[in-house]
């Protein structure tokens, strides 16, 4: 735990990166597979849920008054029950971080550098992340300020250069399958980036002004969700719902289709910078949250000695996590939503009840 603070705007950028990272790669495929051409409506529904969910997390953030999730859990439930509670939370963060690492590793090995073994991609990516987590949250937040304009520019570039290939007929028929698939499929977006935001409760206490931080969190959620919406609808408009569902990385596929005036092609790697950046920030937030959480779990003053051993374990976990693509698809499709629901919604809800009871008791 170090004495660092970040501003509300930097926090907003971190939230945006956190939402876009890794879900930009894995969300459009299952959405288009099930909700077909109406997948974009599911994203809008999910953003609405996200705003309500962030209000709930904001409430916990202000109730715990400057304590992180782990600290307030130990404060509320005592030394043993609180620690048991934290084991669930921290294991969720650690597993999530290794899965995010696996996402970028899979993407790189299948699309960009197929000859490099998966381990080395993971190790190289993680080394940079460990370096960032070593310096602390202040530098992470400042670098997010530097990279945000790049991401926005690249997104605008992608949107404009793919404009000529947009076919509005791909969205028809609107509501062809009724409303039910749209509602049930918004759970994909809810499970992948939104419920994971419980990790940000470890960073929330570092933000200087609490009131501004709350607004920044909601704004960041809306903005990040907007980018997901843009990416999903671009995939649908350019590829159509069937091709989007068939491609493992439809966003990369549309970047490959960029063709400016017949002579400028092959720009996909420049566009891929978007997801490398966003996944980098998501991973660094998760990694920092995990290591600080474990340090507070053992009531250590410094989280830095834990970074390298945790990284070694994470490389192994990320490699054994998914034996093959079919396993990945069943896990993300069937198990991830209940898993993130219990750890992202029920755990914080229990903590919030505990905090409310504790506050009432201390008042009397």
């Amino acid at each position, binding site marked *: 735990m170090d004495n660092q603070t970040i501003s509300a705007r930097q926090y907003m950028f971190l939230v945006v990166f956190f939402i876009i990272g890794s879900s930009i790669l894995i969300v459009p495929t299952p959405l288009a597979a099930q909700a077909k051409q109406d997948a974009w409506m599911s994203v809008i529904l999910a953003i609405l849920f996200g705003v309500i969910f962030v209000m709930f997390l904001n409430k916990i953030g202000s109730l715990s008054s400057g304590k992180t999730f782990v600290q307030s859990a130990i404060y509320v439930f005592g030394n043993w029950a609180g620690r048991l509670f934290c084991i669930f939370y921290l*294991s969720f963060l650690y*597993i999530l971080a290794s899965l995010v690492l696996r996402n970028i590793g899979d993407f790189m090995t299948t699309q960009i550098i197929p000859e490099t073994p998966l381990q080395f991609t993971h190790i190289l990516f993680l080394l940079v992340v460990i370096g960032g987590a070593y310096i602390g949250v202040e530098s992470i937040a400042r670098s997010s300020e530097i990279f945000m304009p790049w991401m926005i520019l690249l997104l605008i570039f992608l949107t404009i250069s793919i404009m000529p290939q947009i076919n509005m007929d791909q969205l028809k028929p609107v509501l062809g399958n009724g409303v039910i698939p749209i509602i049930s499929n918004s759970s994909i977006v809810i499970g992948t980036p939104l419920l994971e935001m419980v990790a940000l409760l470890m960073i929330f206490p570092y933000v200087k002004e609490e009131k501004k931080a709350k607004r920044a969190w909601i704004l960041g959620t809306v903005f990040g969700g907007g980018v997901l919406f843009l990416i999903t609808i671009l995939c649908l408009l350019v590829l159509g719902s069937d091709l989007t569902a068939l491609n493992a990385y439809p966003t990369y596929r549309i970047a490959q289709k960029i063709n400016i005036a017949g002579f400028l092609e092959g720009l996909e790697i420049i566009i891929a910078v978007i997801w490398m950046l966003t996944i980098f920030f998501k991973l660094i937030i998760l990694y920092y949250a995990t290591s600080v959480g474990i340090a507070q779990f*053992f*009531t*250590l*003053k*410094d989280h830095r*000695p*834990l970074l*390298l*051993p*945790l990284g*070694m*374990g994470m*490389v*192994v*976990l990320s*490699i*054994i*996590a*998914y*034996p093959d693509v079919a*396993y990945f698809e*069943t*896990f993300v499709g*069937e*198990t991830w939503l*209940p*898993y993130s629901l219990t750890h992202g919604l029920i755990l914080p809800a229990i903590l919030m009840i505990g905090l409310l009871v504790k506050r009432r008791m201390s008042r009397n």
Partner: protein
Amino acid sequence: MWATISVIAVSLLIFFLEFPRLKRKKKTKEMWCFSTLLFIATTVSVLESRNVNLPNPLDYIQAFYNTINSWIGL
């Protein structure tokens, strides 16, 4: 073989990078946590580099939620 040797070399490197710093500051608790975590991570990595089939935590998570789903009847 080379994978195992390099894993052990890396963990020794990490140990000698961090441990003297902690020892100088006399942080006993940090020293224990760091050493235990490093020991676990090294063991797991060595087993992985010897191609031992490690248990996958995601299997347990999946089995757990499948049982719960079958209780609820989904």
